[in-house]
């Protein structure tokens, strides 16, 4: 492990390990591997790890361990994590694109200078990877939107997109779990539930998992309109 990283304090009870750079599979691999290595070791005083695109946050009890002790464990885990791979699962997410399920598809296509059909086929061709959960329960951020579909967020958030909305912004894609206002572009809807609150493990994906989208028509989508 010789690649650059930085370890930064976050208040008195957390540290942020920053692998730097932009969103990429390589960097996400490093985050996921270190997360797995630290979970396996469970050093005293480590309470929680939060993986993100290029960073891993560690929360600790400052009365049970110190920044220095945890830092040493992190460096040791990094040396070993460099070579290990974490088991990833592949999921297929059925999507009903456009129409009432993807109200922003036409506008997104116009912004991109593509036909709606071309946007759909480009989105289907992408290889997606869950890099992190963020924002709110079950919001699994996937990287892998093909560059020709990269759009900035809308200037302001819009309300009224139901759970299961498939939306894109920049290189990112996600399937919503809550009915929340968003500035992302909703191009379709999926019946796949990432958050099932009543389950003991309510979250479908884990960081590192791979997702493939599959187009389905409204009749077979398992979705209800309205």
């Amino acid at each position, binding site marked *: 492990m010789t690649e650059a990283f930085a370890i930064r304090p976050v208040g008195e009870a*957390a540290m942020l390990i920053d692998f730097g750079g932009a969103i990429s599979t390589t960097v996400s691999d490093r985050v996921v591997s270190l997360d797995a290595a630290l979970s396996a070791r469970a050093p005293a005083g480590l309470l929680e790890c*939060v993986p*993100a695109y290029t960073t891993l946050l560690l929360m600790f009890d400052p009365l049970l361990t110190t920044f220095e002790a945890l830092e040493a464990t992190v460096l040791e885990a990094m040396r070993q994590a460099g070579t290990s791979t974490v088991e990833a699962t592949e999921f297929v997410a059925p999507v009903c694109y456009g129409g009432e399920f993807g109200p922003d598809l036409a506008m997104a296509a116009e912004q991109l200078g593509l036909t709606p059909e071309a946007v759909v086929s480009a989105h289907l061709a992408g290889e997606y990877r869950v890099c992190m959960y963020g924002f709110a*329960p079950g919001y699994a951020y996937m990287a892998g939107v093909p560059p020709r579909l990269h759009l900035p967020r809308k200037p302001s958030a819009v309300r009224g997109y139901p759970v299961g909305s498939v939306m894109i912004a920049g290189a990112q894609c996600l399937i919503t779990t809550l009915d929340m206002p968003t500035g992302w572009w909703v191009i379709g809807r999926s019946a796949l539930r990432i958050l099932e609150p009543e389950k003991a493990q309510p979250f479908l994906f884990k960081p590192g998992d791979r997702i493939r989208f599959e187009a389905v028509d409204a009749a077979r989508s398992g979705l209800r309109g309205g």
Partner: protein
Amino acid sequence: MAVARLRVEQAGPMTTVQDGGRFGWMRYGVPHSGPIDRLSFEAAHTALGNRLDQAAIEVSLGGAALVCLEGEVSFAVSGAAFVSAADGLDGGGWGVGTLRAGMRLSVKVAGEANWGYICFAGQVRRPPWLGSLSTHALSGLGGGRIVAGEEIEIDAASAGAEARAFGAPQSWAPISNARIVIGPQDRFFERDALGLLVQESFRASAGFDRMGMVLEGPRLPPVSVDMVSEPALRGALQVDGAGRVTMLLADHQTTGGYPKIATVVAADVERIAQSTAGKTFRFIPVTRQAAVDIYRGSQAERAEYLSRIRSPESLSSRLLKHNLVGGVADGLGFKE
């Protein structure tokens, strides 16, 4: 087991069920939730002899009013919660009382703070989510919001607590110096912005909810907002593109693309959160080592305060247990 049945006559929009918090799920986008002001919450539980992580009702602007329909249950109020009308009960805050069938408990949020707690000598019957009754306000998951017209049942309700006032902690006084550890995304700011952060004063605002509080003060525009989303924590001072500072609270989003210029030490987060609009304070930068010392000191202070206000019943039962243990030890000594 005794059950007390309460009807919610009125409740402000930010009235929710909260317990000690939901830990270990932040990697799935779930913040810890739990009380905004942990010390006030723990004080009311301690005064009743409860476990510190039991569920309670958190109130904010608008207060709440409960009518006891059936049964009886002792309660304690703390923080901003101020008993304004309770049949047969004296008004006031930071106190213990008992609610019996037909009685009404009306709690106002006094003008000196933003968040208050109503704890019960019993278990609030609500569905847990991921092992916790804390309400994640954004999704409504957990114990949930408390709304007018509904009923709340308190299981294993006991009504034996003696009415008394137990007094606020010393740290209840308005905060004038809030300590911060710079970072983790201070690299997004020029030296000028970092200077303003610690030289100018900031003001609490009315723009708050369970996710955060907007702080008024100098604008600290980041040099760039083109940041990859990074994890965020309670106490983070997040700065938006316009340079506006928000302090994140218990229901914060777990990641965010706005840079966090600094992190408020745990002991001072709830004190800022309790500051009413217009209260001014300054940020004092400390090293991470100093922040750990502050944490250690504040934990000791809290433990001392909580032991002072502990319910007399639980104190006597502890003494009894102690004597009993002593007696057994003596007995063993005698045998040898």
